[in-house]
């Protein structure tokens, strides 16, 4: 553990923020450019993880365990979300025989 501690000693907080921002943006881009509902879902997971990482980094930076507890809650939430979301996708697939979000354009004026 000592060594691990030494490794991160030099990393500035900004770089964690930068990393998280990049991954979050990649998630956003994924959501925007893909049409497969499952891939969009995975992009959302990417975004969630980016936030998780940032929360953990801040938790360590401020020496406050609450941040990590929060990450734990987010993970629980993500698990629930994935379960329901995938169930919805399965239903959509059953009804439309596709997971293309552009097929779901009935809800409009």
């Amino acid at each position, binding site marked *: *553990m000592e*060594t*691990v*501690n030494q490794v*991160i*000693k*030099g*990393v*500035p*907080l*900004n*770089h*964690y*923020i930068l*990393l998280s*921002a*990049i*991954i*979050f943006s*990649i*998630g956003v*881009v994924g959501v*925007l*450019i893909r*049409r497969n509902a*499952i*891939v969009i879902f*995975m992009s959302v*997971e990417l975004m969630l*993880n980016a936030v*998780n*990482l940032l929360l*953990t*980094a801040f*938790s*360590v*930076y401020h*020496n406050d*365990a*609450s941040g*990590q*507890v929060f*990450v*734990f*809650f987010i*993970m*629980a*939430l*993500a*698990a*629930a979300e994935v*379960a*329901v979301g*995938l*169930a*919805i*996708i*399965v239903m959509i*697939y059953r009804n439309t025989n596709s997971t*293309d979000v552009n097929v779901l354009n009935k809800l409009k004026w």
Partner: protein
Amino acid sequence: MSISLFYFIAFLSIFFSLLVIFSKNPVHSVLYLIITFFTFTIHYILLNAQFLAIVNFIVYMGAIMVLFLFVLMLLNLNKESEPAKSNLLKIAGVVAGMCLLVTLVGSMKVLDTSNPVVLQNQNLGLVKNLGKVLFSEFLLPFEVSSILLLSAMVGAVLLAKKEPKLYK
């Protein structure tokens, strides 16, 4: 081990997450996503957040990814069946994402915090410490989250099962 380990892992995270969104085959996407999550696990370890590292490993890489793969296989989507979006939309999406990145980075500059992350308490991310916080300060949210999980489970079962024949 040197400080460059963080940057190497960070590079891997970005690289694989890019592969996730750009690979044509959804199954490949899932696999790349697993690798991305694994790099995240390493990040947690580097931050000495051992509990989170384990949970991330089990919940994300294990349970959630299995769910994704399972659904993909179930729906038989493991081919490049996805019709491509128009290039214009793709470019627009990328531009929007880059804008977001620029904004986020810009806001980080405004924040102007560049002190190194130093672990002051060795025990911060350990199960014992987190457990104490979780079961004292966050007891109620913890219990509520159990209800959330229960309802998610019920909902998922209800949604995914065959339509009941109401008008038999």
